[in-house]
């Protein structure tokens, strides 16, 4: 090997070449492009979060959030809500018998009556909810136990629903319509509300069952299977195990509210997020004549007790509520806004002090430099 040098350049006879007069004249110019991107010199805005810039933001947030919070809180406080538990856990509660004598096989329905008094009149539209506690509508096995194709009126899915519906998919050879655990456990208590006139007469409060489900659900997502009429459309399917009536007879009073597009059914099919939940049951529309929709006074709630909850330690409630633009009674949002607004304001003040203190210090420290 012809390498030789005196500065320990070559350790093991490596080839290396060097040309005295810059022999590498063949080098192509591979000069990189001088573009702003490649040179990392794109024009840029370079904001920095300093106390000075953040301070105004904190004050502004404080000033905006606190009024919003107060507004929300006041609104929420103006909403009237009445809640009554009718599960019948205690011996002295009116539904105790119904709750404890429940049997899936009984043909007669058990009913009970709960009396209550509204201290204040309810204005405008009043919404009637039923509430369930400790009911895991968000359980994974439960949530997926449905067939949206079937519910959308798909003919094949009606006869052969998804396996997700197991074990509520078939009874013998007949498929269940609607299939799945959600549909099977449809809430089937019926609630009736009576106003007790000062005279003692019971005056039934009109409960509207339209408009309780999302419009898009009622009109697009849920559809009845095609057929001359509903019974033929659902021919060859079985009603869910726990149901008393087939799906096309859910609402005898209104033929358009039957089958998959029954609004109570649709409401139930929208599974709740948390184990304690409420679902819209009826709407009590404001009547033009009288001033308040539900005047203060005594009321009677008539319950047809069909839905057992004691077995899993659940509770059932009936809720009456008015509603504002921001929905039902929920002081949380207002309080949260007020708190966050205050914190921001407070932090703003703290930062102002710190900023002032350190700014002068660092300024004085910088001067000698």
């Amino acid at each position: 090997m012809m390498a030789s040098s005196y500065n320990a350049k070559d350790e093991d006879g490596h080839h290396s070449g060097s040309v005295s007069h810059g022999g590498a004249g063949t080098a192509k110019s591979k000069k990189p492009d001088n573009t702003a991107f490649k040179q990392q010199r794109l024009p840029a805005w370079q904001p920095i979060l300093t106390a000075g810039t953040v301070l105004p933001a904190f004050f502004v947030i404080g000033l905006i959030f606190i009024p919003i919070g107060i507004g929300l809180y006041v609104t929420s406080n103006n909403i009237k809500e009445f809640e009554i538990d009718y599960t019948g856990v205690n011996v002295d509660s009116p539904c105790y018998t119904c709750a404890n004598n429940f049997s899936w096989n009984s043909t007669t329905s058990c009913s009970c009556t709960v009396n209550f008094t509204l201290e204040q009149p309810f204005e405008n539209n009043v919404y009637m909810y039923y509430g369930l506690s400790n009911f895991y509508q968000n359980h994974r096995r439960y949530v997926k136990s449905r067939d949206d194709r079937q519910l959308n009126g798909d003919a094949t899915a009606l006869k052969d629903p998804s396996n997700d519906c197991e074990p509520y998919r078939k009874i013998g050879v007949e498929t269940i319509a609607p299939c799945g655990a959600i549909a099977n456990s449809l809430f089937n208590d019926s609630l009736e509300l009576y106003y007790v006139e000062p005279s003692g007469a019971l005056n039934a409060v009109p409960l509207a069952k339209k408009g309780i489900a999302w419009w898009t659900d009622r009109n697009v997502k849920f559809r009845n299977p095609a057929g001359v009429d509903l019974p033929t459309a659902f021919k060859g399917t079985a009603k869910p195990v726990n149901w008393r009536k087939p799906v096309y007879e859910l609402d005898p009073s209104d033929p358009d509210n039957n089958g998959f597009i029954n609004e109570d059914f649709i409401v139930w099919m929208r599974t709740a997020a948390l184990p304690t939940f409420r679902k819209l049951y009826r709407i009590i529309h404001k009547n033009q004549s009288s001033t308040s929709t539900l005047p203060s006074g005594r009321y009677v709630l008539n319950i047809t007790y069909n839905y057992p909850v004691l077995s899993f330690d659940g509770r059932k409630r009936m809720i009456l509520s008015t509603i504002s633009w921001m929905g039902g009674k929920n002081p949380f949002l207002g309080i949260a806004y007020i708190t966050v607004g205050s914190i921001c304001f407070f932090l703003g003040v703290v930062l102002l002090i710190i900023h002032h203190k350190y700014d002068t210090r660092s300024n004085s420290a910088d001067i000698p430099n």
Partner: protein
Amino acid sequence: MFFCQCVGEENWEDSRTVYIGHKEPPPGAEAYIPQRYPDNHIVSSKYTFWNFIPKNLFEQFRRIANFYFLVIFLVQLIIDTPTSPITSGLPLFFVITVTAIKQGYEDWLRHKADCSINECPVDVVQQGKVVRTQSHKLRVGDIVVVREDETFPCDLIFLSSSRYDGICYVTTTSLDGESSHKTYYAVPDTMAFRTEQEVDSLHATIECEQPQPDLYKFVGRINIYKDKEEPISRTLGAENLLLRGATLKNTQHIYVCMMTNDSVVKIYKAVINTVLKYAWQWSPDRDEPWYNHRTEIERQRHVVIRAFTDFLAFMVLFNYIIPVSMYVTVEMQKFLGSYFITWDEEMFDEELGQGAQVNTSDLNEELGQVEYVFTDKTGTLTENNMEFIECCVDGMYERGLGPLKTKKEYEDLFFRALCLCHTVQVKEEETVDGIKRGIHQGRPTSFYISSSPDEVALVEGMKRLGYTYLRLKDNYMEILNKDDEIERFELLHVLNFDSVRRRMSVIVKSSSGEYLLFCKGADSSIFPRVVSGKVEQVKARVEQNAVEGLRTLCVAYRRLSASEYQVACRHLTEAKLALQDREQRLAQAYDIIERDLVLLGATAVEDRLQEKAADTIESLHKAGIKVWVLTGDKMETAAATCYASKLFRRSTQILELTKKRTEEQSLHDVLFELNRTVLRQCSISGLSVDCLDFGLIIDGATLSAILKSNQEGGGHGNYREVFLEICRNCSAVLCCRMAPLQKAQIVKLIKASKEHPITLAIGDGANDVSMILEAHVGIGIMGKEGRQAARNSDYAIPKFKHLKKMLLVHGHYYYIRIAELVQYFFYKNVCFIFPQFLYQFFCGFSQQPLYDTAYLTLYNISFTSLPILLYSLVEQHVTMETLKREPSLYRDIAKNSLLRWPVFLYWTCLGVFDAVIFFFGAYFLFDNTTFTSNGQMFGNWTFGSLVFTVLVFTVTLKLALDTHHWTWINHFVIWGSLLFYVIFSLLWGGIIWPFLNYQRMYYVFMQMLSSGPAWLSIILLITVSLLPDVIKKVLCRTVCPTATDRAQVTVFLW
């Protein structure tokens, strides 16, 4: 690379025998064993058409990350999962497909390249005729004709050349990027062959060592059988071996014998260890209420199996904490990010016509963590552009080219020595790059090439002094002396240079029949062998020159009598013919021959400092990086360079740990004394800001003593630790007289010290390769000494000064980018998964996902991926100018400060806090109330969508808060991602998608947006989530600002 043992060959003996022309040796010599060598079919491709899919899949799933995601996917397929298999299958499929296409394409290119090589026509001599065949049909032992500008189809032994002197020129551009021509020599006994018939009549065998991995090492022997005579044996060295892939130049044709063939070995490294995180709860009570029965099959399952599948389901649910996309994003960031180094115009060198190169992109962020820089001196700190400065003959010295007043006899010998004792080759202009040079200089001239710039400088210096080395012709060296007479010396032997001996010699026979040995080398290796001459004067002069930073060489000679020459000749031949331990035996032979020399004089060659080397070193110092210079030069020269390059300043207190000192005192005493000095000084100056800085000088001999002491068990304690302790307190260390391997040892020593600092080695020559490979980050300089360093490095830069930008700007940026990338990824997935985890407490631990499948799948792929990727590509927390102006900013990120536990913990806490805010914010909002104005209720999917919307916005805005450099790209991806999320959600919920068997998201998003409280709570939750981070940022900046913070503000104020 070029030699590869085939499996079957490993069992053979150490040497292999090749029969030239497939002819048997004459009977009696050796038994002819027909050896089966594989044919010359080159296969560098990895796959064939048939095995591509299985093999590629296998290769890909060997990576732990891919395998992990595959397992998750399989689990999802098998068990009843909370999320659809698509959520993990789709990203995995995407990653696998893209990789497979990329690898497939690359392999297809390799196939094409292989094919063109294999089909390449080759001329083979068979029965005295030239037959054209294809490259892959070549067999070991074939005699091949290679013509000018053809590429060697395999490794070849050079038999004869069309040139009369039996040499050929070769470029190895395609091998190592060196464009210069290298000279190879034909086997002396066969170089006379001119025609095919003659070559074909050759009857010889070649014995050689088994193929070695070292590209440039070859030891062999050729046995030539002539009629009925004893075979003649000749040694074969690397100078006879032509490597495959090199190209023949300046030579019409050559005859060669095929030696070996190769196959390509690929190394795969599996990287990435991923950690499985899972949560595991089990709630048997009220597991099965009447409204929610299990199926029969589920009920029949054994409780253990049920527990196991539940565990798997949780695993699936929480596997998003390590998303596929993180893996992909980090890879992409590293790969794409490295382009900014290549594109950098400031690191482009006009002279070389090249910019920085990135050989591996895995180390970008380590560039920001360097604590020790080990630099070579020659060619790295200095230009390696040698200029002959002075010569000192017989004690008299003269700068420049003035006449020397000295004895004529010595002068003649001295100049002849310099003219003869070298391995410089002369190249005639017009034959090299003919037209270009010829026109340029007007007349055909010759110029010198050599692997060592010193030699070129010396020979050119001699030319200016009137002694011109003309050429080597037929083993005669021709010199044109002062009187324009041509002197001819027969070159008998070259005792090559090596870095252990540090000298080289030639034995020549003058026209008067005298045998002369000329030797030149480092002073330390010459003086002990000198018996006469004005040693004292020369020594003084050499030292004086060394102090000035010049490179010095000593020249000596010896007259050999005919008998002495015979002895020497025998030693050399024996050693050269040895098959085993040839190196060692040669060294012994050299040692015997190079003795009893007469000192002639010394030379001094200047090597100027590279432009801005001092500035660069100063910046590195300010950045808190310790710079060590490792050089083979002598101490004085090196120290002078160090002062010039500001490695040592006037105020630096120099500690010496050299052989000279250890000869006086024991190593033990010196070490402990130095240690005391250092420690005392530091404890005194602990109060003052400027700790007096120390510079340490250590030489190779002492270093090996220190290292050896440790191996022996160290009776006097552990020197290694003491040494490290001293080094730690020195800002600069100079190691001189280093052998290449010692350089690597030092790097290793520091690397293994208890702080485990990140080390960077930078060098330009082959002698730096070992340390470049040893250090965490190896940087090669594309210098004059070839490309070995650049090829073996992780990054290659044209000049030393570019190191400053490389570390201070690119390294810094990459580090903060990757730090943010990794932690942000973790943060956003904590934010993503933790609400899901909290939700399990409210859904009976049923593994119900909080978010819709589409959201689960797309969260990491499209909603939040681009902003962070682009951030990690273009973020500049401080401007480039500031980084360059204030190197001390580099200290802010030292010791991995952005990826340490406190920081990581902060991100995790922030993630958990945000997740808690998201979840419980939504929880309290949903708690038992409605938030529409028509009394209708929302379900679990609205709940999830609310959390998810807050999540996406918070996580994106958090990144926006961290962004200090808002280019249009950042604006585009950040706001674009948010917009995309909204549009996607509207679309996803806007249609009944016919291909889906569930419509759970139908109108959910729009219903949510139609309610006022949802808007209000989204705004509120985002604000609350971002608040702690903003406060932390502002407080940190105000109360205890780092240097980086200050620099940002100054820029801001401008």
